[in-house]
């Protein structure tokens, strides 16, 4: 595929992520932080986010499986997840976390369970999308083009 076309596709894809609310401004901020001295910054952060989130989701699943649920712990996990998701700009996860914490506060087990499911879904979605995004970037780099992301700064 031609590089220019790939670049356009990447841009369009990115745009769609914004339109769908998967990502928000914060992701742009993140991309801005990436420069020559730190070329893989976004990818690093995102992979850290993935690792972190998976751990947290596992913890959460386990915590909610317990016969007596420690809501305080659940809340702190969700807080963590919310913090990291808002840091990378995964807006939908963040929003799901907000609802999750509200249920936590009410100690509503069913609400928590459904929220966990939702968070997991959102997480999968973001993960897929971001992985696609990175793959596209890598393809562009492999094809010898530059990633047009840098123009996004405004």
């Amino acid at each position, binding site marked *: 595929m031609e590089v220019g076309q790939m670049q356009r596709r990447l841009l369009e894809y990115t745009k769609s992520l914004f339109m769908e609310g998967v990502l928000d*401004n914060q992701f742009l901020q993140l991309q*801005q932080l990436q420069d020559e001295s730190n070329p893989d910054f976004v990818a690093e952060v995102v992979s850290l986010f993935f690792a972190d989130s998976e751990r947290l989701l596992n913890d959460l699943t386990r915590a909610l499986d317990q016969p007596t649920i420690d809501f305080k712990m659940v809340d702190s996990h969700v807080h963590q997840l919310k913090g990291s998701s808002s840091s990378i700009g995964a807006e939908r996860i963040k929003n799901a976390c907000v609802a999750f914490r509200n249920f936590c506060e009410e100690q509503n087990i069913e609400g928590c369970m459904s929220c966990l499911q939702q968070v997991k879904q959102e997480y999968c979605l973001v993960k897929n999308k971001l992985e696609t995004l990175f793959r596209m970037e890598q393809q562009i780099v492999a094809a010898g083009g530059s990633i047009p992301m840098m123009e996004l700064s405004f």
Partner: protein
Amino acid sequence: MGLKTRKNHCHSVALKVNEQMGTKIGYTFIQSNRAWLPKALVLWIMGMAFISMSIYRGMDEENKIRRKEVLGSMCDQRARMLQDQFNVTVNHVHALTILVSTFHYFKNPSALDQDTFAEYTTRTAFERPLLSGVAYAPRVVDAQREQFERQHGMTITTMKSEPSPIRDEYAPVMFYQEPMSHVKSLDMMSGEEDRENILRARATGKAVLTRPFRLLGSHHLGVVLTFPVYKSKLPPRSTVEERIKATAGYIGGPFDVESLVENLLGQLAGNQAILVNVYDMTNASDPLIMYGDQNQDGDMSLLHESELDFGDSFRKHKMICRYHQKASTPWTALTTAFFLFVIGLLVGYILYGAAIHIVKVEDDFHKMQELKVRAEAADVAKSQFLATVSHEIRTPMNGILGMLALLLDTDLSSTQRDYAQTAQICGKALIALINEVLDRAKIEARKLELEAVLFNLRAILDDVLSLFSEKSRNKGIELAVFVSDKVPEFVLGDPGRFRQIITNLVGNSVKFTERGHIFVKVHLAERTMVKTDAKDETLLNGGTEEGVCRSGTGQFNTLSGLEAADGRNSWDKFKHLIDAEGFQSNASIINMMASNGGSEDVTLMVCVEDTGIGIPLSAQERVFMPFMQADSSTSRHYGGTGIGLSISKCLVELMRGQISFVSRPQVGSTFSFTAVFGKCKEYVFEDIKQSKSEDLPPGFKGLKAVVVDEKPVRAAVTQYHLNRLGIMVKMSSSIKDASSTAKNGDKFQPDIILVEKDCWISGEDSGFNAQLLDWKPNGHVFKLPKLILLATNISKDECDKAKAGGFADTVIMKPLRASMIAACLQQVLSTENKRQAGRGVPNGSSFHQGLLRGKKILVVDDNGVNRMVAAGALKKFGATVECAASAKAALDKLQSPHCFDACFMDIQMPEMDGFEATRRIRQMESKANEQMMNGGSSVDGTAKRDELHLPILAMTADVIHATFDECLKCGMDGYVSKPFEEENLYRELAKFFKSKPLSGA
């Protein structure tokens, strides 16, 4: 987080609703017994009926008793009288018997004959009114019959006028009263009745009576009275035999009972009312009537019986009285009882009605209360909804704006670029509107908190003016600002919100004004309040009342010469203000600050005066209501949501002030508001003056200028701006004046002459140029004064003409702003100092990069991703970043001596939160500082500094003001919101690191 707090709010609202519902349980007595009300009414009515009945009965009973008593007494009285009269008669008859016995039997021969008897009895008849007559019949035994008949020459006959058959004895009538002649020689013993009577009379020796019968003569009912006559005196206790033996004859007479009683009753009062019957009750089972109607008419229910004693023990008589008419209906009792009942009924009904009413009112009250609670809840819900929706709209809008920005960065044709730019502008307008709505919602939810920072009021006003300068210039409106010298240079308050109010008011004015001026004035409120006399108050909103027009030409002494709505803003007042304050040098501000340092607050009065279309009188009261515009056509013509003024009002109230306005349609509006600001302390003031002071270049101090303007208000504004630059100003009303003062060798040698465009145009014809030329040579020693034209708008032609006419130097376009004037003057005077060239806020990535170069920063966050992002962002600024995953790790790293220049601290962390960590760090520092003080400068590297103080900045997603306060309280220095935004981060960092490299360099 925002969502969470909103949720909490929801709870609290629900709670409040519950509480208010809870108060409803406090029913009153009536309310709780409402079901019993009708029953109580019925009971009451029944009770009243019973009471009325008993009262009626009581009264009726009393009536009856009285009636009975009256009847009794009347009856007794009649009986007694009858008896008395009867007895009198009986006594008299008794006397007659004695007469007969005395004169007929004791005298021999008899001294009595028929004639004597007749005469005597007739003449004494008045003594016996009841007897129609008397007769005497001697006792004649059968043996003496013939002798008797012979002796008296008569034959004894029976009642039927036949010769009497032979009997044991006879009682022929011998003497008689005249009317009784028909009984002569009748044998009284021949009648069964009479015979019995006679026998009884002689046996008892007393008067006896027959049973009643119809009398022969009158056919009245009557009785016959019989009295025995004895031959000899009888002993007082004589036996029956003795009496019979001694009997000589009998005297008798008929009693006309009927006429007797009739006469008697006729003499007594009240005989119409009662019926009297007299009975012979000898045979109790068969009473014989003696008097009265046999027919039982009259009131049979009430009788009174009185015993009559006529002296005959054998015969019993009785008088029975009845009322003639039945007892009349007892109207008094009836009406009394009835009225009592009616009154009771009414009272009961009134009470019932009142109770029902109370119940109803209480019901309504509860209903209203509930509705009120619901309405309030709905209002809160509305605000929340607005806030939520606005918030939700903002997020995608940010996306849209971001995309538009991206789009504008790409290669676009000019049309595309135009479209995109328009879209972006619209988007920004939408965001601004949403922010307004959010503001309003925040204010309503009482969540808006005002900042309290020092700010320069004049700079803000200049900023606002510059915002609208383009528009006002296009419209040809004069836009000016004037701040009284008494107003401190720096005040403590919320500059953003202050600017918002001013922007709103000025924006409105610009929107609605097509000609004339918009004038923003700021002065101390206390001063003007004293000056505002009652006379002016009457003018407010009064309409067309004149008195504002002060000069004869129809010109007004306002900024543009057009009439303004508020008379108080006229030149007279304004001059007063200026005079009172005096236009001294800038130094006076400092003096004043020093002298007024005591009080902490300063109340400012801000007026925004325009000569626009004004507000229709009908709409004036709705001006501050949200979403209200003067009328619907307004929004069509001018746009806008009408929310701005209501926000302004709220903000002003938050600033402890009041907003009001005076408006006259087609004349203009003047909005004024007061606001309370804190004064900064003197010692702080100096600091700030150095670091934060206006960006006005100080190079103009001591320059002298002449302002040529015929309008004093406008001149005062120009003077104000020039004074701010430190330029001494002289005013003159025309160019002629100005040049003449210059010529007269005045010491005041102006460096600059500022001429108002109006003056120039009017002066042009009168040889303006010549005068200027006159002037020019006068400044021989010094450089020539620079001529500057002040204009609101100027056409190309005029501009050329001005240049030709001597204004080669420059034209300053209004609205005037100190910084702009400074820039122009700099250009004109071509001053050598060019230091202000780059004094603006440094911008651009290159600067960012350098900001933290060489700095070592510690990032403390338990969240790995956050840590990494923060580190990334800081690295971008050139810093060396180290991370700590927990507060404990951070504390270890910060054991002094350490080499960190700053620390970013997450607040919400497990085990130890950011606040606690900061407190510990500060403890460590103070300990180290003490040691240093004691042990001298043993710690290398830090010895140069006076004290250890690591800047600690909080990182939190929580953007509530209270959190910020908390941060400061525990010793943090600043506050960065998460997630990081480059600009935001830069702004915070710049506070700490900007001054150092500059001062160090």
